[in-house]
């Protein structure tokens, strides 16, 4: 125990532990494919890559800052209302993101409509606050938040890429497939996203067998 603490103190801002906080959510601890959180929004906003990108940036900002703020407050928060405090922080950050999009990215804001507000209910946020930020230092919490946001965003963009490619024949709104390709409307329906996420989980687990349940 004392050894690990010494080791922690001697690490720099980007020590091994810190790097793991950022990289784990990409593979071993991905919020969507391993923790299976945030599925609802992953189905809803992945029709086009641009929407997925904006959603990812929004979620990265909210996970990062909510983790940071809660971690800073962690020693003052009364235990009985800690969930409410967490939600208040998340909700305010999401409201700010929503207003900023409304002011500076109006088209995207209109297309994503309710799903920006629904970031509040994204389980990744509460999950990280409860599991990590309440018990860790601000810097590590910020990294953990950003890592999880990026891990979420990576899956979102991958799903959106294939949905837009096959559903509209385009990427980022630019037509890339030749004209003879008839866009497949099925890909634009949320159900298509769950198939894609399933395939991603399948590929990931066949490459990384330690994720497979041994039960």
């Amino acid at each position: 125990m004392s050894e690990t603490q010494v080791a922690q103190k001697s690490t720099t801002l980007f020590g091994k532990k810190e790097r793991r906080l950022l990289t784990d959510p990409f593979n071993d601890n991905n919020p969507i494919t391993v923790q299976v959180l945030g599925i609802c929004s992953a189905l809803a906003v992945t029709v086009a890559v641009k929407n997925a990108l904006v959603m990812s940036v929004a979620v990265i900002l909210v996970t990062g800052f909510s983790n940071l703020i809660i971690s800073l407050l962690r020693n003052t928060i009364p235990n009985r209302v800690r969930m409410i405090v967490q939600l208040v922080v998340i909700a305010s950050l999401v409201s700010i993101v929503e207003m900023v999009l409304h002011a500076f990215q109006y088209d995207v804001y209109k297309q994503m409509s309710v799903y920006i507000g629904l970031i509040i209910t994204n389980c990744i946020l509460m999950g990280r606050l409860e599991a990590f930020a309440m018990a860790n230092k601000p810097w590590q919490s910020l990294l953990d938040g950003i890592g999880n946001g990026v891990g979420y965003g990576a899956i979102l963009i991958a799903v959106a890429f294939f949905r837009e490619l096959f559903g509209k024949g385009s990427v980022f709104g630019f037509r890339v497939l030749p004209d003879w390709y008839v866009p497949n409307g099925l890909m634009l329906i949320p159900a298509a996203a769950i198939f894609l996420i399933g395939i991603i989980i399948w590929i990931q687990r066949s490459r990384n067998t330690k994720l497979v349940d041994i039960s």
Partner: protein
Amino acid sequence: MDRNSNIYTIIYAAILTVVVAVVLAFVHSSLEPKMEANEKLAKQKDILRSVGLVDLPDASAVYEKTISSFVIDASGKVVDGMDGEAVNVAAEFKKPAEDQVHPVFVYTADDGSKRLILPLYGNGLWDKIWGYIALEEDMNTIAGIAMDHKGETPGLGAEIKDNPKQYNDPFIGKTILDEQGNYVSVKMVKGGIKEPEHQIDAISGATITSDGVNEMLYRGLGYYLPYFNAAKSQTSLK
């Protein structure tokens, strides 16, 4: 201090609420002008889209130059001193028909010809749909239509906005009155067009959105019939 005492919890919650409220109020008030400008520009673009002016770099300037507006009441009389832009179509939609007022936007082209642009508002499958329809000076022939929606299914109902070539352009040239001058509106129909003057092909797979568009057109244009009749009898367009 004891972090689990009631008094600490209450004070903590109170301070947190005040801080959050101040921060949110500050952000909102500093971004509000920008948000309102966005809303206004989006509406202006929709109106210009109905007369075929899309993707203008200076939509706001074109709008100011070419569009004027006035307001009519439910009996078709012009309401003095009211600006069309001040009318909230979504709010009017909820009022009883006899209390509603309806804006009319007039587009004046470079050659002096005019078109009437009327707002439409109704229900799609999942949420609200709305749009603007432009009529020629005869108040019968459709010059253009632009539609938008809040949450119609992409690739199906959302085609009313995403695929203007197939679902907006065919409206152009259709008439809303039959040969006897009776109001028939225009419709999106399935299974073949029987009256080419008043019908276009519906969106396959999006029956409820198509029906919503039909209802929106029938009711939306219907509001203006008293005004049309009055204006035609005076044979002058305001």
